């Protein structure tokens, strides 16, 4: 199944950015051996000057995904009920509130900051610590923010596309943003073994719970792509743009599709 289905699934689960950053799967070998080495810096519409390196990291991450993440995600699915998984996702999203709130404020999105704070209070109290999402039923929808998006709102260019080993696809700006998000998370500043275990458990759970709903969509994209790496890169960059715009689509920056006037004559 193609990209529309994946977009649909990811949009419905609302986990696209986290998943995109935490998972990275692919088999660039499907095209040809030559794909591994050649640079495509000349592709003006694809800022990927480090494609050779990125493809190697992509292959490494794909191997890690096949061996560890997918089996873990399948196991997690096998031992949990759909509602339990939804509850765990809610809990993790609720725990990320400080980071989202800080970025809402840094972006000057005070209305959304109010929503974030409101959701946190409601879900932490009557939502059993965040397992439930009564705030959504009240019409306060979940949204996500991160420092990469904040930098984009401030006007920072994305920089080249980069695939980090084990952390997956990103851009230079978003990679820096992810580091800042880690640093501004209050959990990062708590010392001691319990805090360390908490951090580890949260990170591991986030990775597995993000991967679980993507098992089939990504498998289908992988199977059907002519070049899975290029497909995934496009998918990541397009969805990231949507995230940065907070869903307020700007169609003006779509590439021109009507430039082939001479082909009208052939119709």
């Amino acid at each position, binding site marked *: *199944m193609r990209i529309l289905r994946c977009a649909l699934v990811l949009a419905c689960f609302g986990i696209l950015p986290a998943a995109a950053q935490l998972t990275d799967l692919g088999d660039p070998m499907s095209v040809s051996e030559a794909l591994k080495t050649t640079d495509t810096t000349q592709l003006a519409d694809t800022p990927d000057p480090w494609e050779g390196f990125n493809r190697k990291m992509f292959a490494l991450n794909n191997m890690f995904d096949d061996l560890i993440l997918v089996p873990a995600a399948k196991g997690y699915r096998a031992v949990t009920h759909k509602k339990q998984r939804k509850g765990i996702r809610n809990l993790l999203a609720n725990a990320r509130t400080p980071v989202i709130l800080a970025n809402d404020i840094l972006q000057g999105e005070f209305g959304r900051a109010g929503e974030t704070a409101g959701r946190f209070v409601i879900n932490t109290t009557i939502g059993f610590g965040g397992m439930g999402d009564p705030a959504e039923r009240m019409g306060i929808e979940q949204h996500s923010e991160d420092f990469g998006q904040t930098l984009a709102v401030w006007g920072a260019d994305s920089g080249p596309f980069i695939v980090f080993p084990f952390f997956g696809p990103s851009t230079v700006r978003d990679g820096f943003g992810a580091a800042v998000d880690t640093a501004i998370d209050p959990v990062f500043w708590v010392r001691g073994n319990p805090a360390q275990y908490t951090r580890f458990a949260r990170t591991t759970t986030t990775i597995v719970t993000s991967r679980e709903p993507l098992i089939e969509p990504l498998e289908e994209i992988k199977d059907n792509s002519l*070049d899975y790496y290029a497909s995934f890169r496009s998918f990541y960059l397009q969805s990231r743009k949507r995230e940065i715009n907070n869903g307020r689509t700007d169609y003006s920056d779509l590439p021109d599709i009507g430039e082939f006037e001479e082909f009208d004559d052939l119709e």
Partner: protein
Amino acid sequence: MIVRLSAALFVFLAFTLTPANADDAAERYVQIILDEAEPALAAATQEERLAGIAALVYTHVDMRRTAMFTLGQYARRITNAQKDAFLPLFREYATLVYQDALSEYSGQALVVTGSVDRSARDIIVISKVKGAEPGDRFADLVVQWRVYRNRDGVMKIVDAGAADIWLAIEQRSQFTSIIANNGGGEQGMDALLRELRNRVKNG
């Protein structure tokens, strides 16, 4: 003086504060297609559904323009022989892609909710799944259709997207990457043709 200023202000506001223009004709055009798609999406068997979608794609998608778009900067560098080989292959490939994508909406009906003009000839028509309730998996999903009006005024679909992820843009990323990574130019295009043949053959 005041009258002149008011007139200037009116003209300024008329040109700057107009919301993103809607294109009624493009909206009607897409709604007709979506109405035609409804029985196809409701078909009892997968074969009927896929055949119905393929018929719609053949009729309403501007394959030539979309195909050339997906080649990016290579569109004007390929030989005529390669172009002749590419266009029918792309048509089959794109049909498979649309069949996969639209099958997701089996049993659903889509309804046009608005449009945005990129230019007088390049229009984005926005649709949603009819009757999707809050909490539904389709509730917040926006399905977008890019309509291009050629110089004779004939409209056709040139791309489709969901949640701002566009099919032809994703295809272009793949195609240009394959061409570039296989030496670019004619050699790269031959590699793309091989990949497309394999993909189409495997269905």
